[in-house]
């Protein structure tokens, strides 16, 4: 299957969610659009993957994370990402995909350093459009900085 419209510039995604069904569905969707997918259940696991990929000089294009994670939460994950010493980790865009969708949860997500917030249940097209826009903006910024 060819790349979907909004994912044309997305090469890799890290999905962080403790729910098996969410991980499976997102993985299937991204993989069917030729996007490389990795999954993690906790913030610790996600950080190991993020740092590992940065060391290999092929950082993730975007992180899609639930707010409620095993042993921690998505806000903490973003906080640790944003303060990471490696800029290839600290600059990765983070989209929250969460069943916690009260206005205060959304505000807390942005305050922690998240770049976007999508509520569950989600629509695949909307999620992809948001991810695509974020990744495009990031690559534009990097192009401009060079």
């Amino acid at each position, binding site marked *: 299957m060819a790349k979907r419209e909004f994912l044309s510039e997305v090469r890799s995604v890290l999905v962080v969610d403790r729910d098996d069904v969410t991980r*499976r*569905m997102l993985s*299937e969707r991204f993989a*069917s659009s030729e996007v490389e997918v990795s999954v993690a259940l906790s913030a610790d696991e996600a950080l190991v993957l993020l740092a590992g990929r940065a060391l290999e000089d092929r950082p993730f294009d975007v992180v899609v994370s639930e707010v409620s994670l095993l042993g921690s939460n998505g806000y903490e994950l973003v906080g640790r990402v944003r303060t990471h010493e490696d800029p290839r980790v600290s600059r990765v865009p983070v989209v929250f995909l969460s069943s916690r969708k009260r206005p205060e949860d959304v505000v807390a997500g942005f305050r922690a350093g998240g770049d976007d917030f999508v509520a569950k249940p989600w*629509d*695949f*097209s909307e999620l992809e459009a948001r991810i695509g826009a974020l990744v495009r903006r990031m690559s534009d910024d990097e192009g401009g900085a060079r």
Partner: protein
Amino acid sequence: MTFYEAALAVAVAAGINLALIAYLVVRRLVMRPTPVMMEARSEEYASLLDVIAVSDEPASDEDVRALSGARRWERDLLTRLVTERVLLVTGDARSRLVDVLDRTGVVDERIKELEHPSVWKRRLAADALGRSYSERAISPLTLALRDTDPDVRSIAAKALGRFEVVSAIPYIVSLIRDLSEDLCAGIADTVIWFGVDAVGPLLAEIRRSEEDSDGERVRYWCATCVANIGSPSDADGDVVAAEALKPLLADPSDRVRRVAALALGNVGTARDAEALMPLLSDSERRVRCEAALALGRLRDPGTTEALLELFKEPDFDVSTAAGDALAEFGETGLELMRGYLRSVGRLQGAPATTEVGA
């Protein structure tokens, strides 16, 4: 008994035992899956459903055949796996998953079971249909609101709440009449879920209950729903709702008076404050508290003196509620409380902006 007769009896008994064991083994293999079988089938179905959900096309006939399990446990498994996914996604992905459940015949099977003589089957069927999100389930579930079993009626109402079928609201509200108290709480949750569309049917049910000698439960639960839903969508609706609630303020039941005060405070305006005033001297302290808080929300300046009198009550909860209500009036209410506290020596030389709290 001859030797041959004894041998024959032993052989017959052994044969019966063997047949029984064989039956149990077959039943185990065919009817009841082993954990390994269940896990394998679960993985097979889940993988296929994930592909269908994220695809840009509806499920193929081949996919549907692969998901059409002949055994009951397979169909139950499919329902569970689809429900798990349907709750996570919207749009085309949800439609494709619901379509699979329809095309595999699971929805038809559950619809038939709504007429099964067994109450348990009907309850399970109503619950499964609500989780199927198939629009074909709406009509049978609406009929199930008149089932002879109260649990089936209650489950059907909750199922219709998931579909947000506005036309079913009057039926769902009317269930409060004949269900037990614990089931009413579930129905109330469903009705509240519908929001302002439910206010009209709730008010009609309140009016109807006034002619009913056993209508206390209906008035209490309907007013609870109105209180939680809040204001109707337009000014005319506000007036209608407030006028329908006012007779409940004089209800013999203290819980009806209390929840009516709460509801009027949520849907009414300052012109409805007058109707709440008698409740400030109600014999029940919780009614006085709720009336005070409602007056605070309505903010009619003419009620501040009465609230100040309530603020002087020795009952801590009532006094606190009156204080909270006065605080809603801003500086006017705060100054009234300060004046009183100074007069009784409980506040000395406080600056004008000091908050008067607990």
